[in-house]
Every structure is written in C-alpha cells, then in structure tokens.
C-alpha cells in the first residue's frame, strides 16, 4: 500500500533533513547556560556570605560558646565576658510583642477582608492601604516609633524601652501577616465552606471549623516569615533608642519590670554596634560575626520551617 505523499519532493527533502539533522542550537545553549550562571551567582554569594561569617566568628563560637551567649556588652573585644545575653533578651521580648500584637490583629484583619468585607470601595481602600504599608521603608516605622512611643507616649512605654521597640516592630510586620494570611484563607476551597453552611453552621462556626484549620499551615508560614523579619530588623530599633555603648543592666528573660526600663539591646543592633566598634578595636569584627551566626541560626530555622511547611502542604493538596 503506497503511502500518500502530503508534500512535494523538494519540501519532503527539506523536512527530512530538518528532522534528521543533529540540531546544535548554540544560541539556545548559551542562553540557558547564562541563565543558570545568574542563578548560581546568587547562590554563590549566599555561600560566600555564610562561609565568611562563620569563619570570622568561628574562634568565639567554638572557643567559648557559653560565655558568648551569657556575656554582656563590653568595651574591649578580648574581654572574656563579652557576649550577647542582653541582646538575646531584647530580641526575645520583641518576638513576644510581635506574636502578641501583630499575629492576632493581622489574622483577624485577614479573616475580615476575605470572609466578611463587602466588595466595595472602602474594602479596596483598606487592601491597597495594607499593600502600601508593606512597602513603607522600615526606617519610617522607626520615625513613627520615635515620635509616638518614645516621645509622646513616654508615660506608657517608658521612652526608649523594649516596649516601644516591640510595638514598633509589631506594627512593621503587621501588613506581612495580613497579606500572607489573606492568601492562605483565599486558597480554601469554596466547597468546604458551602458544606459547612449546608449542615447549618453559622458564618463564624464555618470559619472556625473549616477555613481556619485548612488555612492554618499557610497562616503559620506567614507568621514565621514575619517573625523572622521582625527579629532581624535593626533600623527602627536604632531610632527608638537601642543603646550604644554600655548597657549596665543584664535582665533575665522573664524580668517583666524591665520591659519599659530605659535603654535596651537587641541582636541586630549589637551587630551594628560591634561592626562600628571594629574601627578602633578590630577584634569586634569577630564578635559581630559570631553574633550574626547566632542571629542567622534563628532566622534561617524560621524561614526554612516556613518554606518547608508551605511546600509540604502545597504538594499534598496538589
């Protein structure tokens, strides 16, 4: 049975040639490789950064890890009592403020926007407003904190206190909490909600029993990301008055009385402080690197957990 020819001889020859030729798409290869290179450069930078910091801080971290975590701010870098304890306490309290203020308010706002808000101009305004807040530079939040919490509300916050810093950072991460929680809630399948209504649930019962459990991993991812942002932020803290120089007091983690005591320290700020000190005393660069490693351990752990959680649930739900 002779095959019917679709095209003429000439065309047939060209097509056969085109299909049989081992195609070497040089431009395509070069393009792909250069793309890969750009990506690898970014990863290489990350690797250099981590290796550089860990190498600089290695001496302190392996030499006297306990002393470094339990020590305080000192004038000289070779002082055996030099350490980050005050900064850890400050950062711990900032994290508490973020968790207690930003999480409930942010998640509440996200629930309202996704489930209750009427589709009108005002709702769109609120959403635009939240997106804009997320893009406001962190130092502007520092100005807000300086103006409002340090100067105008000194009677409540104690001025340049951990309370002022904590509230400022809670405000700073609030829009991130709202936006990530909104995305998580938006992903809840309509069918789940309708099922709940079908068995007579009220709106809140439906949200509580269907929406929140389904969105929980997504919301948790968002809160972890915003927490890691919060504990790594330095600029607003410099404005609301983290001390430079000496902090005489070394409170324990649960000294509630010191929350609004004047002056405090936090992990990102102690790094800045020590980097600046390294101009007159080069040993402080190592202390700063060691403090960075301590901070990075927390931040990367939180981020990695968040990313893992998100990917895990994304895959599970297809």
């Amino acid at each position, binding site marked *: 049975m002779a095959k019917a020819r679709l095209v003429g001889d000439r065309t047939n020859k060209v097509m056969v040639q085109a299909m049989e030729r081992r195609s070497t798409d040089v431009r395509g290869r070069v393009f792909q490789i250069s793309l890969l290179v750009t990506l690898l450069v970014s990863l290489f930078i990350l690797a250099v950064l981590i290796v550089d910091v860990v190498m600089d801080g290695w001496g302190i971290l392996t030499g006297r890890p306990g002393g470094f975590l339990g020590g305080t701010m000192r*004038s000289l870098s070779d002082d055996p009592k030099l350490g980050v304890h005050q900064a850890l306490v400050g950062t711990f309290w900032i994290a508490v403020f973020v968790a*207690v203020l930003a999480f409930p308010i942010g998640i509440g706002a996200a629930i309202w926007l996704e489930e209750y808000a009427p589709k009108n101009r005002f709702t769109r305004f609120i959403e635009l407003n939240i997106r804009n807040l997320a893009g406001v530079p962190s130092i502007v939040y520092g100005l807000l904190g300086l103006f409002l919490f340090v100067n105008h509300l000194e009677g409540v916050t104690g001025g340049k206190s951990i309370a002022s810093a904590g509230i400022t950072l809670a405000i700073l991460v609030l829009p991130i909490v709202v936006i990530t929680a909104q995305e998580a809630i938006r992903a809840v399948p309509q069918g789940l909600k309708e099922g709940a209504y079908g068995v007579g649930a009220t709106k809140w019962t439906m949200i509580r029993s269907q929406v929140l459990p389904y969105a929980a991993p997504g919301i948790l991812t968002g809160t972890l990301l915003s927490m890691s942002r919060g504990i790594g932020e330095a600029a607003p803290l410099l404005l609301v008055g983290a001390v430079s*120089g000496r902090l*005489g007091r070394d409170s324990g983690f649960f000294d509630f009385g010191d929350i*609004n005591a004047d002056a405090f320290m936090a992990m990102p700020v102690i790094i800045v402080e020590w980097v600046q000190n390294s101009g007159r005393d080069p040993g402080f660069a190592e202390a700063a690197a060691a403090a960075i490693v301590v901070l990075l351990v927390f931040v990367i752990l939180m981020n990695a957990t968040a990313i893992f959680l998100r990917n895990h649930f994304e895959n599970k739900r297809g």
Partner: protein
Amino acid sequence: MRLQKLLVLIIGLITTFALVAAACGNDDDDGAAAPSTSEQQSSGSDAQPAPAGTVSGSVTISGSSTVEPISVRVAELFEDVQPDVAVTVDGPGTGDGFKLFCAGETDISDASRQIKDSEAEDCAESGVEWVELRVGIDGIAVMTGESNPVECVTFNDIYGLVGPESTGFGSWSDAGSLGLATSDLPDADLDIYGPGEESGTFDSFIEIVLEDIADERGQDATTRPDYNANADDNVIIQGIQSSDTSFGWVGFAFAANASGVKLLDVDGGDGCVGANANTIASGEYPVSRSLYIYVNKAKAEASPAVSAYVDFYMSDEGLGTAVADVGYVNLTDEAKGATRANWAGR
C-alpha cells in the same frame, strides 16, 4: 480549638498591656538600673553592713562623653569583683554632667575640664561637696603624610586649615588668608581627615585648639564641615597615608602605632613640642588635656557602693589598665599618687 487559640492570644495581648501599664506605674523603683535619684532612701538600704568585702547598691555617673569610656571600662572591671553593684554611665557632656551633679542627681561626674566657678557655686548652693580626681590624659595627634616638609604647626595654623572660617580652602597656604599670624605654609593640596561630629576626639580637638580663637573672632566653635569625616580611626589613618600633603587628627594612642604618617609638632605658644607619651603625660604637648572625675563626698560617705567604686577607680586596674584600655594616656606615677592622696584625704 482554633477559637480557643485565638482567645488565648487575645488574652495574652490584654495581659501584656496590663503588665506594661503596671510596670510603668512604679517605673522608678524597680529595675536595678534605675538611677538612685532618691539618695537618702537608697543609701539607707546600701548602709547595711556588707559581709566581708562585698557591697551592693548602685552608682550613677554622668558627664563628659570623652571620660565616659574610662568610667564604663572601670565599671565593667568593677562589676566583675562586685557583681551586686549596678553602675550606670551617661555621656551628655561635661556641662550637663555638672548640672546633674550639683543638683545631687548623680554620684560622680565625668569631666574633660576642671569645674568652672559658676558650676562650683551651684554645687555650693545646693550643699553638694565634692572631691576632684584627675584620672588620665587625653592626647590628640595632629598628622600629615610622611613626605610633607611641614614639621610644626601653631594653633593659628590649625585654625586656618580646619577652623570654621576655612570652608572651601584647598591649599595649605590658604590658611594665611584669614589675617591670623600663621607659619609659612606651602602652596600644596590640603586633604583633611578626622573623626566625625559624634566622636569625643572631635569635641576635644575643638575645645583644646579651636575654641579660644573662634571665640575671639566671633565664630562658632567647630570645624569646617567639608573634610573627610569617619568614625573608623583606621580609615582616617589610611586617608592621611594616601596623600603627601594630607592633614588629620586622631586620638594619640591610635596614632602612636600607625605607620606611613608623620606626627606633627605643635606649638601652643611655648615652642614646638612633639607628641609622645612623656610630653603628653607632663602636659608639655599642647593638644592634650587632663580628664577628671568629681565625686560627691556625702554620697561616697553614705554609700559603700560609691566609695568601693571610686576605690577601685584609684587602683592600678582603674588608673592604669582601664585608662590605657580605652586609648588614653596614663598619668605619671607621681600624678597618680597625687590623685590617690586627694581621694584618701577627702
């Protein structure tokens, strides 16, 4: 379940606010770091007979930002042996420090000059008696590039090079154009490197060299703004090295170990004197000044914490180690003896 978690969070929020509110109610009397402004009450508790050698209480220090690092370093070393004493150190400036000191609000005042008559009167009025203790010397090295022919500069020269009226000057010889009697300076490029405005060395330099001339000429006591300011002393030294006809200044302790720069002699009216530890300690080198602490006698009497702190300050760890640790020049042994005698004979 979820609702309960949310409720827990909200309750936590409210509790925290309550705690914050409660804590600020008694702000002044909790927290070891709170300044002991209520002198009689706090010294009442301090006066408990201390068991063998250990004392507790608090010491409040304020004053010069130049002296602050010494008092801080002494406090660090002191707290290692007396962990129950909380020392707070502030550095708003010598004048502000004396205001607080004479109002009885601080136990010790750091000062980069001696007390003025007007300040002493304030103290006398409020019945604050004090003892003056010289603790160290702040010397500032004035430098240029290694191959600059200039060897010695006068205060007038320095004013002409970096004073407030020299803004825009690009050559050493411009210094003569202000009508001041200056040395014969070369017509060479002038690149200036120095510490920034927040630095204690910046203030010291102005107060020692520029202030008197600026006052006479009705100018603000400051430097010209257009020079390379940096907080990092290494960067200042590198800048000075980078040009043959640079000009700059940093604390003496830092400059002493630097290579590739030339420390200029300075003529403060009594001829050119080179900077070294001896001429600074003896006060011959003009760009130097003594640093003091002023101790409130009554408070030292009442509070074992204050007297123990000053005792420690007077020891070799204080006048010797701490002063050198933070980059100042030690007093001569004789002068140390005089200071200790002052303290002992209060």
